[in-house]
């Protein structure tokens, strides 16, 4: 399963937008509050209810409840009113959005700004029972809190977006049977090389086992390593496989720049394996490591299709707009690179009292 396009109308910051995605790697950039995470969340909300292991939707009502609850859980609007996700204008308004999937499949959703928990859902799905998984890796790591998180989440109102709960459920899965594929081993090798150890799970708790040093519980391991541990474990448990759509919100969080190159390398291996990847980033190194693959085809031996999306507010209209290119060098609005140049300009201004 691949997401070919996402169309949004009057959804949060997006007035009218269509994104045609790459089957391989999509890198979404932009300043804060330009809707990067919104794009990941809305796609996840549309995909997760029909992914592997999700409850069957025998009736239209069940389908509606399933999508609405996912949207509520992921975005957590006040009082769980989904109408709060409609673009704010005077009077009433209506949000419409849809994900176009491969094999001419489509998931559409729409609701008005006064709706609390009702939405119009239209499913054009050719397959009964989907075999893909949608994984969302949020900015905070989860592996150090796996043990009691799900029971807490199920019994109490704790203010965590539902992606954390879903991710935790994946981390609770046992190890899968059978050998890994060569691509899985390549990713594991790349990450385990950084961490100089292996991830093991005992009684729902995770440990980093380092040669000659013993086992370290995740609470004693850095946040960056914990994130890598999550990926490693999801590969080992079979959750992250060739049929996965991976959404990773700001992989650079808590990572030293030195760790970015192996992470990008591992993501390209996952893409080669068949995983469709969506990454948001504020980070120069993440963006440019991917960009190298685009501008130097000899580095992109598998000819992966990379798309760089820049979200920004137009200076004249002050409207959220976007551009999409095959290389970040071609982006006319690149907040990361612009800020480097702006910093140089500010420094020269200071030096010469301009």
């Amino acid at each position, binding site marked *: 399963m691949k997401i070919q396009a996402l169309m949004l109308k009057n959804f949060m910051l997006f007035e009218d937008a269509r994104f045609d995605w790459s089957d391989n790697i999509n890198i979404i950039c932009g300043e804060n509050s330009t809707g990067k995470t919104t794009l990941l969340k809305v796609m996840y909300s549309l995909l997760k209810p029909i992914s592997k292991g999700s409850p069957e939707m025998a009736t239209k009502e069940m389908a509606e409840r399933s999508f609405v609850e996912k949207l509520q859980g992921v975005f957590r609007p006040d009082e769980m009113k989904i109408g709060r996700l409609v673009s704010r204008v005077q009077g009433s308004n209506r949000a419409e959005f849809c994900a176009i999937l491969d094999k001419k499949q489509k998931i559409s959703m729409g609701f008005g700004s006064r709706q609390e928990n009702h939405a119009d859902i239209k499913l054009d799905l050719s397959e009964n029972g989907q075999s893909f998984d949608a994984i969302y890796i949020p900015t905070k790591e989860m592996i150090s809190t796996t043990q009691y998180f799900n029971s807490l989440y199920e019994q109490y109102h704790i203010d965590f977006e539902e992606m954390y709960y879903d991710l935790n459920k994946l981390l609770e899965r046992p190890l899968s049977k059978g050998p890994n594929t060569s691509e899985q081993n390549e990713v594991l090798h790349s990450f385990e090389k950084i961490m100089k150890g292996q991830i093991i799970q005992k009684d729902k708790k995770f440990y980093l086992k380092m040669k000659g040093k013993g086992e370290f519980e995740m609470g004693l391991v850095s946040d960056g390593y914990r994130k890598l541990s999550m990926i490693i474990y999801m590969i080992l448990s079979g959750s992250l496989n060739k049929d996965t759509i991976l959404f990773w919100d700001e992989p650079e969080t808590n990572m030293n720049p030195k760790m970015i190159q192996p992470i990008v390398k591992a993501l390209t291996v996952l893409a080669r394996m068949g995983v469709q990847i969506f990454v948001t980033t504020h980070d120069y190194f993440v963006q440019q490591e991917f960009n*190298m693959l685009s501008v130097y085809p000899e580095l992109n031996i598998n000819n992966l299709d990379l798309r760089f999306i820049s979200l920004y507010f137009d200076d004249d209209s002050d409207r959220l707009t976007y551009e999409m290119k095959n290389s970040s060098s071609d982006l006319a609005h690149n907040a990361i690179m612009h800020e*480097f140049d702006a*910093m*140089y300009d500010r420094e020269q201004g200071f030096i010469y009292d301009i």
Partner: protein
Amino acid sequence: MIYEESDMKFDFPDDNTTIKFDDNVEFYRKLFNALPGSKAVDFITLDKEFAAFIEIKNCMGNEGNNRWRIFPDNQKKETSHTATDLEGRDSLDIEISEKTAMTLAALTGIVSFGESRPSLRELRNIADNVILRYLKDGKKKKYVILLLEGDFGSHTRSKKMIMSNLQRSIKQKLKWLNCQVSVVDSDTYPSKIFRIVS
């Protein structure tokens, strides 16, 4: 007044005192060059408020042979593939820092002669000013400027990032001197100090 250097023309304000230092015969060529490895910046210019030591590097059209020099601390010297002999050459941050130090040493040398060498009179006025007015007065600004012409930007690094990196490295090497270091090009140069005519 218009000066030429590295196939470029520069206009310095007439009110300021400017010399093309390494062109000077009486001191630079005859005396200072006796010091092995002696070198100096291209221009010294004095305004009421500041003194500027300016080095021009016009690599336009010859970027390939100079690319290794934009990486500080000779990082790429050993692995560069250039058509030019690299013996005695350094990355630009090292070269500019050394040129600044040697320029100040040369100016000190000029001052040391006092009135004894009439042929150095013009230079002595400038040297006296630099040493006794600008360097002695901590409030007067001292600029060390590298003008780097050439298309060195790449897909992953803009030219401004490259210039910032060199600037940081020169600043670090000149921390013994109270000065402002600035690496600029024809798009970003300080027009209050000079103008590029062509």
